[in-house]
């Protein structure tokens, strides 16, 4: 069962300069919410920002991770 720390680590390792804040919505290790701030999001549309984060987890979304709710923001401070 993935933990919030696992998700945070995977996002921050995969997306350069990213800061992720992950919470477990249900306490059951399968429904998460992540707020992700990353410099590269400045170049991406909102849809692309979310796709970028989903891509970190590949088939785990819909597998062990039943739901991952996202808030994404471009880094304001370079």
């Amino acid at each position, binding site marked *: 069962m993935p933990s919030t720390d696992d998700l945070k680590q995977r996002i921050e390792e995969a997306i350069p300069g990213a800061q992720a804040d992950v919470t477990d919505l249900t306490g059951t290790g399968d429904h998460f919410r992540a707020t992700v701030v990353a410099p590269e999001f400045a170049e991406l549309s*909102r*849809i692309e920002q*979310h*796709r970028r984060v*989903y891509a970190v987890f590949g088939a785990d*979304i*819909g597998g062990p991770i039943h*739901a*991952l*709710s*996202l*808030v994404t923001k471009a880094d304001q401070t370079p």
Partner: protein
Amino acid sequence: MSNPIRDEIQNAIDSHDVILFMKGVPERPMCGFSARTVAALDSLGASYAAVDILPDPRIRQELSAISQWPTIPQLFVKGELVGGCDIVTEMYESGELASTLGVSAPADAPDEAPAAAEPGAPPLQVHNNLAN
């Protein structure tokens, strides 16, 4: 290689200005994220087509292959993926959803997206013939 389910999904996306792929049906969503998205659309009085992806796992699989989006629900407007529950909720709160859908936001719209479905005009239903 022919892929009837994928063709059927693409055809549904192409032939409806606003179409929501969801778990369950608008009157009876089977997942909180689908319910929230339906509630946002309904509170704007938007008319939309809805497709339940639950009857056959291939629907979700093929939909995600088309949209490059792994989760449900998925809202399409004029053939383009607008987003899932998070983006639709964000857009509802900013007023962007109303303009994307070409409806006027109610003057008394709450700041936060409605949590549950409200009664309204029944949305157009797509006959779901994907589950054979």
